[in-house]
């Protein structure tokens, strides 16, 4: 294929898109909407994965001691905790400190101790951090075996629930995208079929004067690619606009929420969206070329 023929193909593709404006815009909008949904679902999945990993890395085990243990015995226990394999850090939190921490969560007008009837119900406790998140359940079990330990709490279940949510989001996202993506492909195919129909006279003459099949096909193929690509660009632009807003607001207001703000990962998502959009366009035009452009 000559360079000038590619130039002709681009010119013809744009010309026919201009002629079929409404159909073409509908196809672009559908591609954009489906990719926007895909992008949202994708970012949600990435965020909940990110959140799960952040929470996993912060996993700590709280070991509450029996109330009859003396302070001295309690402090001596530290070595027992440190002897457990995989433990990174062991902190003793006395019942007084525990109460202070609790008090800090309420405003100054409320006196927790008074509300509790002057009795501190909190036990002494140890906070154990694991070196690796995967070790947390095993360490928790060993901590439980220490006789002085009344009970053990760690974030069991939370991470699992988050990962389950991630999987669910992923499935729903894929299904929704498949359905709308199919609609997008169909619209692209229809829009190109209309173009083929509008240009059937030209196609007839082209064949007679000796245009190759691919010379005839290229403008239609390009039309599909352009529709898909433009739709994807629109989706990426709006997704970027909304997401950067969201990140901005989350950081300002609820900054403990670990939102994903790693540009290289987000750009990676954008690149894929552009690729998928162009691919949808290619599929749409391939369908209509096969079915309606028997050259």
């Amino acid at each position: 294929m000559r360079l000038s023929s590619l130039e002709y193909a681009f010119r013809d593709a744009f010309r026919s898109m201009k002629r079929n404006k409404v159909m073409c815009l509908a196809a672009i909008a559908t591609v954009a909407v489906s990719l926007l949904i895909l992008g949202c679902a994708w970012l949600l999945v990435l965020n909940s994965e990110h959140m799960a990993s952040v929470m996993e890395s912060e996993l700590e085990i709280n070991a509450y001691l029996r109330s009859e243990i003396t302070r001295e015995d309690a402090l001596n226990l530290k070595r027992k905790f440190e002897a457990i394999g995989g433990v990174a850090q062991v902190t003793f939190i006395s019942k007084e400190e525990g109460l202070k921490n609790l008090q800090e969560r309420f405003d100054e007008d409320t006196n927790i101790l008074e509300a509790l009837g002057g009795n501190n119900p909190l036990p002494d406790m140890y906070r154990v951090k694991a070196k690796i998140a995967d070790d947390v359940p095993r360490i928790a079990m060993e901590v439980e075996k220490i006789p002085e330990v009344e009970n053990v709490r760690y974030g069991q279940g939370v991470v699992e629930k988050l990962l389950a949510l991630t999987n669910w989001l992923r499935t729903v996202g894929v299904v929704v995208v498949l359905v709308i993506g199919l609609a997008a492909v169909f619209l692209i195919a229809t829009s190109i079929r209309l173009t083929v129909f509008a240009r059937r006279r030209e196609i007839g003459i082209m064949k007679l004067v000796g245009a190759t099949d691919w010379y005839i096909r290229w403008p239609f193929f390009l039309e599909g690619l352009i529709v898909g690509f433009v739709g994807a660009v629109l989706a990426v632009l709006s997704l970027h606009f909304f997401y950067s807003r969201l990140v901005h607001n989350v950081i300002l207001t609820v900054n403990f929420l670990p939102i994903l703000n790693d540009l290289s990962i987000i750009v990676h998502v954008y690149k894929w969206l552009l690729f998928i959009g162009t691919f949808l366009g290619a599929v749409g035009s391939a369908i209509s070329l096969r079915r309606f452009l028997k050259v």
Partner: protein
Amino acid sequence: MIQIFNVSKTYKGEVTVQALKNISLHIKRGEFVFLVGPSGAGKSTLTRLLIREELPTEGQIMVNGKSLLRLRKREIPYYRRKIGFIFQDFRLLMDRTVYENVAFAMEAMEFPRNEVKEKVPAVLEMVGLQDKINAYPHQLSGGQQQRICIARAIVNNPLMIIADEPTGNLDPDTSWEVMNILQAINKRGTTVIVATHDRESVNRLQKRVIALANGRIVRDEERGGY
């Protein structure tokens, strides 16, 4: 240049029609040939076979030493680039100017841009349309429209021109004009084949005349009349 050996063409359908029955003929390079005969005699079928729009049911067609039957599908476009077509109904694009109509064909044959720009005005001048370059076909007379079609057919310097009823929609004076242009093209060495009903032009030009009737060649004269 064109050799047709025992060619038959049958259209199968609700009614089976035998459009050509065992035709053999030779056309030499640089010849000017009229195909004459009543409607349904097989003139159009013969032209359709020559442009490889259809294949014969039986027989062999050789053009320039190559068999049209053995032409592969992807070779057809390149074969057609060696032929210029002229039709009764012109087959012009009404939403394009005279210039664009000719340029469109050159683009389809994948000529580069600069060659298109250079050749289109030259060929339009050859058919006397240099003043109408930016006019639209509907603003022109039938004869002028047919000249666009001729310009489009010869812009590629084809080996042969095949014209199917080129003057069918034109009045006698205009027909004569068009025939004259075809004759001029023939004088430059291009083989010209004209299927026509135009009795007057055939008689005036005194060229080779092949008469068809009911799918058979009934007459083949070197300097014949209608």
